């Protein structure tokens, strides 16, 4: 597929990353209680394999991934399961079944935690299966199970693995901190992922506003002397780090609409995922922790924190000096695509790369916004990285015109929020499009259901008709035989 000659649109945004990156990564000790959501961000839940009252060791499996889009959940600490109930969580829908573990303080480590001896000897299929058991999921924000992505990449014959170190969204800098402090882990993980995905080469992509990270990764690559592992520096434009846009920028191919990156021969993983894979290979730990940026004007000392999955966000914020001023929103993610959470008792998930506590200084402009009609200025189209026409999409969305929505590409929208950001009429475009996609989904589901019901009804009518005809024939044959008692000829029916 031909690549676009210039990067389509996007915008340079204020980064707000300086504050959090100044201090070193805080290694947060295990909390006294963890809240593990069984939906770790991808939209599909794992199935619990424990019950309330069970004692678990650190690293033990507590929920199994039956669905390919769910990822296994492990206990980050040793303790007792005190609750398994639906709670508020940082996932779509706002709620998930959660397993709550009270730490016993004991240092028990589960038997399943064992370093992977010689990952180079494992076949790609074995690597993928082991990663599935270890609950490795994407740490870039979507939480998609890594083994599923790698398996489909191998199936479709992907040739390039792209490691996403772009981190284009404002406020988030956990990947930057990771690359600066553990570039060797990233590179080791890259090699393992490259083999598991079956790709020939691997490219690590970093934005040009992270010079220290670029230097660290360059040195780590040089130490390895692997020709098929390279670094690509891309301009710091939002949303260059979004999967599709990154692939086009690095590999020069376009992901087909409605398709997967693997259809274009590329598979994309986040650098933090690669580092987690390296941790797993060297220590045998399933995915139990991650680095998360805790920042915003509502946090006293912004910084990056390595914390256990399931750590309540309140503990993360406390580790960074606690709240400051009048916090208005607690956002899981960055300022452009993050999800506002209702409570700080929600547990850290694998997909949460940033905890953003905002005050009026940060989001005042959005809060005070008054929506006016669209003046057709076209700024939205000039920044859309997917080449869409948001103003036409808005009209279609308001009119609930499904054919127009499909034709204009509402499903090709990557939900980056840029159109919303630049709109002078301050229309909440991103939200309208999310709603429109939901309406399309529901309408299509209803149409499919109706078509199936129609077909089944026709079959039902035909079946009844055939039964009635057969019954009539049987009745006739019995009646005929009754009228000719001496006739021994074979009768049909019965």
């Amino acid at each position, binding site marked *: 597929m031909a690549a676009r000659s210039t990067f389509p649109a996007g915008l340079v945004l204020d980064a707000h990353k300086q504050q959090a990156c100044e201090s070193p990564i805080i290694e947060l000790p295990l909390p006294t209680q963890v809240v593990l959501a069984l939906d770790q*961000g*991808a*939209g*599909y839940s794992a199935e619990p394999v424990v019950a309330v009252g069970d004692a678990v060791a650190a690293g033990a499996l507590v929920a199994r991934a039956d669905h390919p*889009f769910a990822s296994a959940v492990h206990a980050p600490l040793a303790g007792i399961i005190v609750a398994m109930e639906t709670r508020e969580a940082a996932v*779509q*829908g706002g709620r998930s079944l959660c397993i709550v573990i009270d730490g016993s303080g004991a240092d028990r480590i589960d038997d399943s935690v064992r370093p992977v001896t010689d990952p180079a000897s494992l076949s790609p299929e074995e690597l993928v299966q082991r990663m599935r058991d270890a609950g490795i999921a*994407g740490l*870039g*924000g*979507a*939480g*998609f199970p890594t083994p599923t992505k790698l398996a489909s990449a191998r199936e479709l014959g992907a040739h390039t693995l792209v490691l*996403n170190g*772009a*981190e*284009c*969204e404002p406020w*988030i800098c956990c*990947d930057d901190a990771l690359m600066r402090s553990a570039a060797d882990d990233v590179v080791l993980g890259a090699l393992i992922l490259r083999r598991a995905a079956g790709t020939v080469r691997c490219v690590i992509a970093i934005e040009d506003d992270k010079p220290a990270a670029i230097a660290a990764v360059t040195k780590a690559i040089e130490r390895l002397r692997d020709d098929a592992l390279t670094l690509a520096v891309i301009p710091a434009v939002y*949303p260059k*780090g*979004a*999967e599709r846009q990154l692939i086009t920028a690095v590999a020069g191919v376009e992901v087909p609409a409605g398709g997967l990156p693997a259809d274009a021969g590329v598979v*994309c993983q*986040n650098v933090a995922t690669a580092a987690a894979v390296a941790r797993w290979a060297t220590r045998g730990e399933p995915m139990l922790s991650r680095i998360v940026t805790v920042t915003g004007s509502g946090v006293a000392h912004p910084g990056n924190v390595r914390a256990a999955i399931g750590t309540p966000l309140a503990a993360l914020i406390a580790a960074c000096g606690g709240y400051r001023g009048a916090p208005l929103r607690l956002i899981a993610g*960055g300022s*452009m*695509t993050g999800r506002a959470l209702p409570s700080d008792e929600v547990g850290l998930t694998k*997909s949460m*790369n940033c905890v953003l506590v905002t005050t009026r200084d940060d989001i005042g402009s959005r809060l005070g916004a008054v929506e006016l009609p669209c003046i057709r200025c076209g700024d939205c189209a000039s920044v859309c990285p997917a080449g869409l026409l948001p103003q036409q999409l808005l009209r279609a969305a308001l009119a609930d015109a499904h054919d127009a929505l499909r034709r204009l590409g509402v499903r090709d929208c*990557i*939900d*980056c929020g840029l159109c919303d950001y630049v709109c002078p009429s301050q229309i909440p475009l991103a939200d309208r499009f999310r709603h429109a*996609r*939901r309406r399309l*989904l*529901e309408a299509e*589901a*209803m149409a499919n*259901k*109706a*078509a*199936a*019901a*129609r077909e*089944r*009804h026709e*079959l*039902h*009518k035909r*079946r*009844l008709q055939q039964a009635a005809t057969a019954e009539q024939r049987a009745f006739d044959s019995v009646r005929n035989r009754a009228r000719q008692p001496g006739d021994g000829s074979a009768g049909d029916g019965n």
Partner: protein
Amino acid sequence: MNLDAVVIAVLVAAALAVALGAALGWAAARIEPDASALVERIDALLPQTQCGQCLFPGCRPYAVAIASGAADIDRCPPGGEVTVRALAALLDRAPRPLDPAFGMPKSAQVAWIDESRCIGCARCLPACPVDAIVGAPRLMHTVITAQCTGCELCLPPCPVDCIELRPAPAVSRHQRRPCAA
């Protein structure tokens, strides 16, 4: 003001209007819309619940009745206001509110058989217009949720009232979030 010119202009405009109107009327009368295609298009807008609340034995007979003018478009509660408006747009009529005489719209529902009370009499099986109940005489019956349209036709035949209606499961929430890191 030239009065003659005004009079002539008015007469010409009126004559044009009459001529064009007559031509349109003749065309409407002579060019019959394809009747069967219309039934298909009406049927495509109906929800296929096959419940019979419109007093026709299924959605297609109702579509035929609408096409022939025997029934109005306001009789389908499962289709709700959305369907009435779609039908009105198709048939170029004004939309009307749903006629409550034919039932009230309900949120999506599916039937559920309480297996502890089911006696296996198999009377509900033929009642289902889409064959969504599996079972056999003296064997357990169950409703295939994915195929149940919520038409409620299985409730009357059941002698032990073991069938109840539950909210239909929501459409899958799966939407891949963009990896905008």
